[in-house]
């Protein structure tokens, strides 16, 4: 009998290893692909935006896909990161990597301040987080703070401008985020998060620490957005608070995530490549056509495919990495 048990365990382990290897190679392929593209394709800004949204959609996946909380104000962390980076670079003349650390710290501090929001459920959480992001924007863009944040007039960071270095830093952040999602999908912690999402009472009864799990996921998700915001500030180097706190950053990330399918690794990737790809082909000239298509897509998705593109496969019992 012990042999059977051992075989089953070894079997499970083999399957887990296969899954992790598959997931990791997808992540690696995306990162390497985006790295190679920079040498091949000349529109660097567009590629950079792809990397930004790939990372943001996965960052949102960490909190929405694994815990069910949908922060409409996700852009707040992105903006906090962008300004964390800018303030340190502008006032302390710090090197860019120190700025990145400040970006991470700013997002984490904001996330800790907003921790009480996790006590709210569903729609209340979504709206409250949106209000929080707006509040941070109002503070940073306030003309009264012009000496510190440059208020609504925007910041300029030409000292640290480094398109190549910042692009590869963004790629590194994307890689780390993808690995984080791979880990969540295949680890005990990720499983416990999904258990909390599906039924927090039962999960708590089985000894899962609900508060701890949600807090960690929230902080990780904020950290990703903060780092992406920081690297955005670094790469773009001239921007306004309207850009850093643009609600469409939240919207785009949410739509990409929902379109592809949350809780998976491929879903958000597909969402970004397909939708943001289309956006770059048709959307730039008249953004409103795209805004309309987006709106319609959201409505149809919620009504007919609430679990995203990957649910076409997962509903048939096929595992999607």
């Amino acid at each position, binding site marked *: 009998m012990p042999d059977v048990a051992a075989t089953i365990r070894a079997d499970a382990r083999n399957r887990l290893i296969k899954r992790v290897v598959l997931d990791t190679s997808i992540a690696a392929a995306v990162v390497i692909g985006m790295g190679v593209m920079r040498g091949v394709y000349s529109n660097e800004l567009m590629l950079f935006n792809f990397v930004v949204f790939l990372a943001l959609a996965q960052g949102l996946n960490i909190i929405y896909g694994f815990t069910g909380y949908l922060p409409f104000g996700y852009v707040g962390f992105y903006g906090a990161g962008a300004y964390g980076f800018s303030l340190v670079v502008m006032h302390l003349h710090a090197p860019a990597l120190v700025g990145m650390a400040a970006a991470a710290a700013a997002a984490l501090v904001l996330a800790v301040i907003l921790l009480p929001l996790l006590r709210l459920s569903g729609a*209340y959480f979504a709206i409250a987080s949106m*209000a929080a992001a707006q*509040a941070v924007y109002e*503070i940073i863009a306030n003309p009264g703070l012009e000496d510190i944040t440059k208020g609504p007039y925007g910041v300029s960071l030409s000292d640290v401008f480094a398109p190549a270095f910042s692009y590869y830093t963004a790629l590194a952040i994307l890689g780390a985020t993808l690995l984080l999602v791979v880990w969540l999908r295949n680890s005990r912690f990720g499983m416990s998060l999904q258990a909390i999402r599906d039924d927090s009472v039962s999960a708590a009864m089985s000894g899962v620490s609900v508060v701890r799990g949600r807090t960690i996921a929230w902080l990780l998700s904020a950290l990703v957005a903060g780092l992406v915001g920081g690297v955005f500030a670094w790469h773009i180097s001239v921007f306004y608070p309207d850009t850093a706190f643009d609600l469409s950053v939240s919207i785009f990330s949410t739509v990409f995530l929902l379109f592809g399918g949350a809780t998976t690794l491929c879903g958000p990737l597909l969402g970004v490549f397909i939708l943001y790809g289309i956006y770059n082909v048709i959307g730039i000239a008249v953004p409103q056509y795209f805004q309309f298509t987006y709106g319609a897509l959201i*409505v149809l998705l919620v009504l007919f495919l609430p679990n995203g593109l990957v649910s076409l496969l997962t509903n048939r019992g096929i595992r999607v990495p």
Partner: protein
Amino acid sequence: MLTGAIIAGIVFGLYYTLVGLGLNLVFGVMRIVNLAHGDFLMLGGIAAWWLFSSFGLHPLVSAALVIVVFVLVGLPIYYLVVPRLLRSRDSEMLSLILFFGLSQMIEAVTTIGLGATERSLPPRLLGVGPMVLLGTRLPKAWIFSAVASAVAVLLVYLYLYRTRLGTLTRAVMVSRDEALATGIDVNFVSAVAFGISIALAGVAGVFAPFILGSITPNMGVAINITAFAVIVVGTLGNPLGTLLGGIIYGVSLMLMQTYLSSWANLLPNLLLIAVLLIRPEGIFGRKVRRA
């Protein structure tokens, strides 16, 4: 200055009650959040502007037209979207995303059709010169808008408490399932409530140029946060609590603008977060916090 701020706050509060009322009615009856509420308000404002600049119609006439048209627009939207939405696993959450999509569509179509410019109506339409109210001089247009809002709120009250359909609506608010079991045509009652809600947003839009200054296609999101703040303060799902929420909101907004004007835009956001965290059930209580 203090009394002035408070009186102006009450005038504004009546208007904000109108802004939030429709949103709260839909939430109370259907347990969904219509995030396109602010965009219907914007459409009401555009309609008033168009009716005035093309036909010279007085805003009051426009308001009556808007009510009829918006109710008729609201009914099909309800039947197309809401019954299917309510069957889903987490309709409250999904409604937020769905109506957000609708809001984006409305904003895009309006921008494509009319451009992103600001539109306004001459305030003299609603009376010339200021009016003195307890020693405070307020533009007549403000008073007029506030009175119109108060009338609309009163009509909703009469509908809910003095008509048969209103009684049925309140029954659905208490429990959708039990109302269904009693034989109430829940879908029809909800559809009418939805139509009324859209019409209320439209009427609020007609007066928006006088109170808020102008109408732009992308004003919806900000209005939504305001409306949500108003109804959360006043108690979600309780249409009459909205009146209290509106007045609290209006008065605090005016106090902020009087004493701390550059930070006034922070107010709806902070008020919303604070109320959600400290007393999420609003002033008249109803539990919303589960997690």
